[in-house]
Every structure is written in C-alpha cells, then in structure tokens.
C-alpha cells in the first residue's frame, strides 16, 4: 500500500507526534504516583466529577472507529457510512434513561457485580469473565488496525511492526497507572480529539465559505447525487434491523462503559456524565458527516482506496491535504494517543474482570490478596495483547468501524440480555443468566464466522457462507433473551419441584456458593 496523496515522511510530523507522546507519558507518570490501592487502580478512588467522567466516556468511545472508520466509510461508500455514525449515538440515551440509575444502585466495579447482585456470584462472574475476554480482543483488533495503519502512514513502518509497537506501549500504561491513568488520560485525549475534529471541520468548511453544506454539494458535484443516498450496504430490511440492534444494544453490553459509571460519586453524577458524553459524541458524529463528504470531495474516493482499501486512512489523508504536515502530525498524534488510551482502558477492563471476578470471586471466593489481583490483571493484559495483535494482523484489510459493529453485536448478544433481565425481571436465575451470556457470545461468533463478513471478505470463499447476514444481531440477541428466559423458568420449576413449600426467593443463601 502506498502513501499516495501524502507528503513523504517529514520532520514536522514526527516532532508534533513526539510531543504528544511525551505529554501522554507525563500524565501516566503522574498517575503512577497516585496509584496505591486496588480501589485506586480499579476505580480512580471515586473522585471524578460528572463533567470529567462524561469527557472520559466520550474519549473512550470516540476511538479509531469513529474518526478513522466512519470518515473512511463515508469517503468510500457515501451515505452508507453515515449509518454507522447514527448508530454510534443511539445507545447512549437508552443507557442514561433506562439503565444508568438501576445499575448504579446495584453494583460496585464491574458488569458482573450488577448481573450477579441477586444471584449466585461465581458462575456469573465466570461467564462474564469469559465473554469479556472474548469482547476485548475483538474491540482491540479494530483499534490496533487503525493505529497500525496510522503508524505505517506517518513513519513508513511495516503494518505488523506498527501494530506490535502500539500494543507494547499500551501495556506500559496499564502496568503503571491503572484506572486513574486511563481516566485522566481519556479526558485529555477526549479534549484533544474534539479539538482535532473541530480543526479539521473548520478547515474543510473554510473551502466552502464556512458553509457545511458546501462539503455535501462538492461531493455530489464530483460523484453525483447518488453519494447522498443509501447504497448497497444495507441490502435488506433484515440486514438493516440486525445492524441497528447490534449497534444500539451493544453499547449497553460493553464492560468498559459500565465500569465508568462507578468512577463518579453518585447516581445523579452518573446520569449527568452519560448525558455530557452524549453531547460530545453527538457533535463529533455530526462533524464526521462533513468530514466524510469533505474527504470525498477534496481527496476523492480513488486516493482513499489506494492508500488503504478499507478506507481507514481517509481522515489522515484529508488532514494532510487541507493542513499539510502540521495537521497530519497533530491529527495523527491525537488519533494515535486516543487509540492508545482506549486500548489501555479496554485491557484494564478485562484485567479487572479477570482479577476481580475470576481470580477473586470464583477461584478465591473473595479472599484473594490485593497484590495477587493486580498481578493477575497485568498478566491478562499481556495475554490479550498477544491474541489481539495476531488477529489484527489477519484482519488488516477491514474497515475498523465495520469490525467494531461486529464487536457490538457480540456485546449485545452476550451481556445485554442478561443485564436487562437482571435489572428488570425478578424471574432471572443464575442458570438463566449464565447460559444466556455464554450462548450469546458463542452464537454470535459462530454466526459471524459463517457470514459473508468472514467467509467472503476475509477467507475469500463465498460458497461457504451459511448465514446470510453480515451482522448477526437480529438472530443472536433475541435468541440470547430466549435462552435466559427458558432456562430461568426451567430452573425455577426444578427448584419448586424439589421443595414445593419453600418461598421462591431471588436471593440465594450462599452468596459465593
């Protein structure tokens, strides 16, 4: 893949880049001094305000997928890319309105706490620990691909080397700073990302007399009105519904989003922080409309595809085109730093889950030592890196927002049904929750594997497709709900048959039984 459309490797870019990396490391060092206990490591000592947490949430979410993937998809496919932009926001209001308060009241650190608060701890922690270990590498893959392409573009490095480098740097963050580093680093990154997006936005519309519509007009002038209409991506209503369900509900099933609720002092702050995040993300996504079409008009579809067939590098090429190497270095560094922070946050979520849920909850029944838990968290981080890097190298050609959509489908099938039922249905039993969680994860992966997404796009064998939809949500999400409900009924029926005089009670005697 060539660097078509970009200036060759130059000093300005690298210096700007280097400055940001230095800044990031300074923040991590600052956080290092503040990390003492497990509480500090895992939940920022609960000292973060709603506004700050809102920014961190937004920063968490707006990673490679948003800035690189959405703009890239729009620059290649026009309107179809906007579908992902819209889908990126819709889960948040549902989260704040229906999920935030109930969840806040029930749990402490993790998704597993919430789901298992009325049920048996160990099986649920085990199940959620397993699905987290599946979800996080999937999410990571998209981020690593984005970061890898970025490094290749700016430094001329080989894709694979770039991907490995990113992973190594991220491991350093988590090892030394924990949640505080990632929360504060997320906030700084969110602000920088918003600034970078704003700069790009202004530079694009400046070409059209500061009229945002100008970008759309220029794109349709160059490629015809068809770019402003839906294309072939959503080929049927089933495909559309499937993607819609995955995007909306997947957000709620993401462990690292859940975890951010518990870094603020009270329910009101949790609610407000999700609202703030919604505003920032919403504005950012609206900006991607203009950036995407701006890229189409200014850079052109061919140049984007030539640099990277997935479109992942579109934003950077745009930056270079409208702002030279300074903009490229700035946007590149901000994007890279954002990805880094997100990746750190994700692996921390997984490390926490393994240490808190599996190691402490399941294996040691609540008695694991603090240092032991932190050690387990770190080992998990390392292992996840290796898996994610390997898969990222394999899936390099895919657009990152598309991959993120698949990850969301997994979260929507595995975690979302159990979470919703745990919050609102007294009838959920331990077996119901566990089977739903595991079934959801496995079913989604199996369906993805049999879909055109893998068989056609990656394995190049379209004759092996046995599941017609590229997104499995339409099937896997309801199926997961069904499994939870049916298994719960069965368990209740079995329990009632065992002791017909016992009062049915959602709270089991042995909390760690």
């Amino acid at each position, binding site marked *: 893949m060539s660097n078509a459309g970009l200036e060759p490797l130059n000093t300005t870019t690298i210096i700007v880049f280097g400055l940001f990396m230095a800044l990031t490391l300074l923040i991590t060092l600052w956080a290092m001094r503040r990390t003492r206990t497990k509480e500090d490591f895992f939940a920022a000592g609960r000292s973060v305000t709603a506004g700050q947490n809102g920014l961190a949430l937004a920063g968490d979410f707006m990673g490679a997928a948003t800035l690189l993937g959405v703009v890239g998809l729009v620059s290649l496919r026009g*309107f179809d890319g906007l579908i992902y*932009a819209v889908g990126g926001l819709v889960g948040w209001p549902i989260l704040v309105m*229906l999920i935030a308060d*109930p969840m806040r009241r029930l749990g402490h650190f993790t998704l597993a706490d919430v789901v298992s608060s009325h049920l048996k701890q160990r099986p649920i922690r085990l199940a959620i620990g397993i699905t987290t270990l599946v979800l996080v590498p999937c999410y990571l893959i998209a981020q690593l691909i984005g970061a890898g392409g970025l490094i290749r573009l700016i430094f001329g490095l080989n894709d694979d080397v770039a991907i490995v480098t990113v992973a190594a740097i991220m491991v350093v963050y988590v090892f030394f700073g924990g949640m505080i580093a990632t929360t504060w680093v997320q906030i700084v990154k969110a602000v920088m990302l918003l600034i970078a997006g704003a700069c790009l936005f202004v530079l694009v519309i400046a070409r059209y007399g500061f009229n945002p519509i100008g970008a759309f007009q220029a794109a349709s002038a160059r490629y015809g009105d068809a770019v402003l209409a*839906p294309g072939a991506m959503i080929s049927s*209503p089933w495909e*559309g519904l499937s993607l819609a369900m995955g995007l909306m509900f997947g957000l709620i099933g993401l462990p690292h989003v859940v975890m951010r609720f518990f870094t603020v002092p009270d329910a009101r702050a949790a*609610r407000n922080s999700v609202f703030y995040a919604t505003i920032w993300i919403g504005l950012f996504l609206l900006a991607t409309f203009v950036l995407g079409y701006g890229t189409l008009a200014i850079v052109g579809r061919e140049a984007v595809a030539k640099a990277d067939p997935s479109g992942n590098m579109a934003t950077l090429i745009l930056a270079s085109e409208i702002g030279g190497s300074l903009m490229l270095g700035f946007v590149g560094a901000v994007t890279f730093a954002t990805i880094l922070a997100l990746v750190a946050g994700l692996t921390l979520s997984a490390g926490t889950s393994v240490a808190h849920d599996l190691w402490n909850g399941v294996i040691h029944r609540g008695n694991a030592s603090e240092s032991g838990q932190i050690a387990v968290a770190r080992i998990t981080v390392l292992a996840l890196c290796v898996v994610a890097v390997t898969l990222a190298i394999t899936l390099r050609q895919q657009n990152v927002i598309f991959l993120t959509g698949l990850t969301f489908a997994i979260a929507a099938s595995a975690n979302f049904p159990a979470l919703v039922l745990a919050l609102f249905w*007294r009838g959920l039993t331990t077996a119901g929750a566990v089977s739903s969680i595991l079934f959801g994860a496995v079913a989604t992966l199996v369906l993805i594997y049999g879909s055109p997404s893998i068989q056609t796009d990656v394995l190049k064998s379209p004759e092996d497709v046995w599941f017609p939809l590229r997104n499995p949500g339409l099937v896997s999400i309801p199926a997961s709900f069904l499994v939870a409900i049916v298994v719960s009924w069965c368990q209740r029926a079995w329990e009632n048959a065992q002791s017909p005089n016992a009062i049915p009670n959602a709270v089991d005697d042995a909390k760690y039984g």
Partner: protein
Amino acid sequence: MQNDQPPATPLVAPTWVALLLSLAIVVAYFGFMLLVALAKPSLGMMIAPGISLGLILAAAVLLLCIVASFVFVVMENRKAG
C-alpha cells in the same frame, strides 16, 4: 464489595418520561434503518442542492438523541434535587 447480602432491594422501574423518550428514539432509529433498507430512492430525493432527505433524517436521529437525553436529565435532576 459487601459480604452480607441485605434483603433484596426493590427493582427500579423506569419513569414514564424515560420510557416515552426511549420509545421515540427506538422508533426513530429503527424506522430510519428500515427506510434505508426499503426506501432508498426516497431517501435519495434532493431537498436542496447537496442535501438529500436521507441526510436530513440521519442528522435528525442524532439530534433527537441529544435532545431526549437533555430533557430526561433535566427532569430527573429536578426530581431528585
């Protein structure tokens, strides 16, 4: 992390505002997706130079999300004090 489980806390029911706004968003979003799948030519209709119906609807869904969140949070905060 508590070791003694208190009596089961009452499960919290969402308020009618929350349910109404959530329903609005679900309808708007899924409706939009169905239009994208089934009514491509209509969404491609140009309202003004450079603006298609689809573009307006996409932006509208995003704005609905922001407004709905705002309304909800203001109302809830007023209640809780």
